[in-house]
């Protein structure tokens, strides 16, 4: 798997970038501009995938305000989902990923946080999506959250469907929601401890059981399958 041929193939694959003119998505540009104007300082950043999707990042304080604006002004009345992302990489790194084990270099566990589209600053980031079924346009919203056990305004007054999603986020990430009508566990039994979707939550079975692939007898078969019978190279 770590043979040099595959790496070369991947590099070639990556280097063939589609050489197209940048498409200007007027509909989404106008939409982002309008949101920016309405939110003022609450608006932080945005990202547009032309003709595909749009991301908007707002401040924690403007979270509820954004929902109201989207619902009332932009007809985004379809509620898709609300969730969160933990951007702090898992401290166990390799232990959690079986497939990493066959890459025998770079064991170093990454601890630096690295954010996705529309950027980020904090460990926890809320992620929500709403959709306008008439104009057929959806928007992904993000908001950075302060602290280890953050608190943010609930969306339930605007989107009642957010109720269960917020309960799920509370239980999976430990993010609580102000003024939520029923902030109790959704899935897990009450005696469950920890927040499973946080990256530092360990999957104990995975650590208890030895990975069967670790006992190695020979090199991984590379591209030259015919020669593997003869390949006597020692590692």
């Amino acid at each position: 798997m770590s043979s040099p041929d595959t790496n070369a193939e991947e590099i070639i694959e990556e280097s063939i970038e589609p050489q197209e003119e940048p498409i200007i998505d007027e509909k989404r540009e106008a939409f982002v501009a309008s949101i920016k104007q309405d939110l003022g300082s609450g608006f932080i950043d945005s990202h547009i995938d032309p003709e595909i999707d749009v991301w908007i990042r707002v401040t924690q304080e403007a979270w509820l305000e954004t929902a109201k604006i989207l619902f009332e002004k932009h007809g985004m009345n379809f509620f898709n989902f609300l969730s969160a992302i933990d951007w702090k990489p898992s401290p166990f790194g390799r232990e959690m990923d079986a497939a990493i084990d066959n890459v025998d270099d770079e064991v170093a566990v990454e601890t630096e946080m690295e954010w996705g589209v529309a950027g980020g600053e904090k460990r926890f980031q809320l992620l929500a999506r709403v959709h306008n079924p008439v104009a057929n346009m959806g928007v992904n919203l993000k908001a950075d959250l302060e602290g280890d056990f953050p608190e943010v305004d609930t969306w339930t007054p605007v989107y009642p469907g957010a109720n269960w999603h917020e309960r799920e986020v509370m239980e999976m990430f430990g993010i609580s929601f102000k003024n939520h009508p029923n902030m109790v566990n959704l899935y897990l039994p009450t005696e469950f401890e920890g927040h499973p979707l946080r990256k530092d939550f360990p999957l104990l079975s995975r650590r208890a059981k030895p990975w069967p692939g670790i006992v190695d007898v020979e090199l991984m078969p590379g591209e030259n399958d015919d020669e593997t019978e003869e390949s006597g190279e020692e590692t």
Partner: protein
Amino acid sequence: MGLSIRVPGLIKGLGVTFKTLIRTLTKGSHTVQYPRVKEAPTLRARGVIALHEENCTACMLCARECPDWCIYIEGHKYKAPPRRPGGKPRQKNALDRFDIDFALCMYCGICVEVCPFEALFWSPEFEFSEPKLADLLHDKDQLSKWMETVPDFEEYETGSEAKQLEVPR
């Protein structure tokens, strides 16, 4: 709404069941009389995994790609006589243990798909229930026995460019 309005739909429904009754009586039922007659699963059905032991080089690829970690392989290296006279002795792998835990297996077929040496095949057999959980761990002899039940690959539909494979016997 009197009784007269409420009846036609019911009569129609009864007509459907009556038609089904007639069809069952004349054309026979759908039932497969299981212990005596067995249905034939399709050729690609994923029933149980068979091992063609000669092709296995203990390369561990299947064990690594298995999402359930349910394949256990052990092997050792040995020096085989050179293929050409005067050549160096070749290093080969011998397979000591090849177990698949069918209690844990999720029958996804990733191991069969990733095997670069065509040592693993799907057999449509499905009858291997056990009263003891440990018996569901099939060793390499058992897995080789399943090889007899592996059907040949079927031909492809017209318009396909896929290459027809063959099962080693």
